[in-house]
């Protein structure tokens, strides 16, 4: 769909997979769904929620294709329990640089299978894929919200609520002093039928609204500055009473709060924005996150939307991003001062053994990739062997010297 925040899906020539938009098969006993790669998560939800099935893993937007989800190895609020999207994929058909159509799975063309998970589409074009859907009783989420007053509470909260399937913390990156690292922790579990209100129970498998509200104009780029972000954060944080709250909400506001507003990115103005998503391993994560947030304050940078999540164990696999630890996502409006600042942040991330998510990346250096992804060089070597001329490339793969 071309929704990557960075340059992963940009190139001089682009293969648009949206015409590969057919549902191919569904096995209701196992939940195995087979689709062509251009089918979007939005469409899958529209068709399968009413039948009592949900995506095994979803990012914060439903406007992604299934093929893109595989190539980006997307993760969601349930990573610590369910892993990332690739973990639910049984097989896919790949159109390779040599012009072959290859079935790839953990047993068939296994290396190509693993190279392609989170492989940013560089191994070929995914034509179709099969993955397991998750059964749900209702389209609602039993939500538990906890206000955490500082970074220690936030991190301890994410760890101690690890038995909840979904967890994420909205972080106020602007708060200092005693409130440094304060957050609203949101936990969610697929709701059972008896947990719904009488009104919700009338249509327990209701799908999301398919009408969005278009964001009308490009806001001036100064709209989101330190002061407005600080004010917004303060209001949002204080909206939540001390302690915790329980509610039952539909999956749409829980998983896809921003999808409701089409073109919400226009709030950043014409120059747009970038996301910086890092992961730091558990060891020293507390110190690492503190250093990151302190550098933000020191350089007077503000991130409009800051999200902290926990990643579960995941074996190292080529370019797949997740590994056990904490993952922090920061949003920045584009400004000239941003690039040197992000280079500084890179140093902090590397110091604590962390790395960045390629799907969000638009600026990391080729060296940084190789230093932070231990299997990057192996990925590049194997890719070169399969496709010496670099048939499937992107601006990102060129920038990162994966391709010459």
């Amino acid at each position, binding site marked *: 769909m071309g929704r990557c925040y960075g340059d992963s899906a940009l190139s001089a020539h682009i293969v648009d997979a949206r*015409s590969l938009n*057919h*549902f*191919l*098969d*569904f096995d209701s006993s196992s939940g195995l769904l087979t689709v062509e790669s251009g089918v979007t998560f939005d469409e899958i939800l529209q068709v399968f929620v009413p039948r009592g099935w949900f995506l095994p893993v979803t990012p914060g937007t439903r406007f992604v294709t299934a093929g893109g989800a595989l190539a980006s190895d997307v993760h969601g609020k349930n990573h610590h329990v369910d892993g990332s999207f690739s973990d639910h994929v049984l097989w896919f058909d790949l159109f390779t640089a040599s012009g072959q159509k290859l079935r790839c799975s953990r047993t068939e063309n296994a290396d190509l299978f693993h190279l392609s998970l989170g492989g940013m589409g560089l191994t070929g074009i995914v034509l179709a894929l099969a993955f397991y859907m998750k059964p749900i009783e209702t389209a609602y989420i039993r939500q538990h919200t906890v206000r955490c007053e500082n970074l220690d509470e936030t991190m301890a909260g994410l760890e101690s609520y690890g038995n909840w399937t979904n967890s994420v913390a909205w972080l106020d990156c602007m708060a200092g002093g005693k409130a440094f690292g304060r957050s609203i922790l949101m936990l969610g579990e697929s709701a059972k039928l008896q947990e719904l209100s009488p009104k919700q129970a009338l249509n327990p498998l209701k799908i999301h609204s398919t009408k969005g509200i278009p964001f009308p104009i490009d806001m001036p780029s100064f709209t989101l500055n330190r002061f407005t972000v600080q004010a917004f954060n303060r209001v949002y944080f204080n909206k939540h009473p001390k302690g915790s709250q329980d509610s039952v909400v539909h999956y749409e506001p829980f998983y896809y709060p921003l999808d409701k507003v089409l073109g919400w990115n226009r709030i950043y103005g014409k120059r747009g924005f970038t996301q910086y998503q890092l992961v730091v391993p558990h060891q020293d994560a507390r110190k690492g996150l503190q250093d990151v947030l302190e550098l933000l304050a020191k350089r007077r940078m503000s991130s409009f939307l800051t999200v902290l999540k926990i990643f579960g164990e995941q074996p190292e696999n080529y370019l797949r991003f997740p590994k056990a630890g904490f993952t922090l996502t920061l949003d920045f409006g584009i400004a000239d001062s941003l690039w040197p600042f992000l280079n500084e942040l890179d140093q902090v991330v590397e110091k604590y053994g962390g790395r960045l998510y390629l799907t969000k990346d638009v600026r990391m250096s080729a060296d940084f990739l190789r230093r932070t992804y231990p299997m990057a060089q192996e990925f590049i070597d194997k890719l070169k062997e399969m496709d010496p001329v670099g048939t499937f490339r992107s601006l990102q793969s060129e920038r990162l010297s994966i391709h010459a």
Partner: protein
Amino acid sequence: MKKNILLVGANSDVAQAIAKLRAENGHALWLTGRSLEALQPIVADLKLRYEVEVSAFVYDAETSNPEALILALPGLPDEVHLAMGYLGNPICIEDAAETTRIMTVNFTAAVLLMNALVRSLIQEKRNAVLVGISSVAGDRGRKSNFLYGAAKAGFSTYLDGLRNFGYAHGIHVVTVKPGFIRSKMTAGLPLPGPLTATPQQVAKAIVKAVRKRKGRVYVLPIWELIMLIVRNIPDFVFKKMNL
């Protein structure tokens, strides 16, 4: 009431979009295409998304017999969408095979199939709506695609006459003249955005025309104006133009 809807050339993007809209209302779909293998994902998709009856039949405009197709169908359709088309090489005056192909797919075969359907419908005293997807290219011949245009002009004229003929028999005929459509047929061509419809827009306009018993439809209203102007350019000017 559940209808049986026949889509000829179901592999086309417009036909697929029509199929989705009709399946949404629970109608049964009969799809035809040149190869069952190519139709397979479309059939699977419609069945999975809408849980309706969908079946596929082989029909090749160049080689198949329309009577044989009608016999193969489970019955007579209540609604037909003829969406097959072949743009071909725009300037193929040297190539007889290509010229024949353009004429056959866009005109001869289309007419023979419609004739056969109408014959059977009248015999069985059945009402139906027949939709023919023609083209604005048929409104006036231009050097850039006049063979395709000529075939579509013939098809449009045929549909006008068939509408008149079918009226007394309870058979309604819709002539659709989409302008540019972003589809497989035009993949890779530079198309002017505001004048280009998506297959979904075309499908919506067609379903609306069927419901309202319209005769002729342009999908984007702007095309009606454009073609009015194009038709009225004096020939001594038109022949020198690059259109």
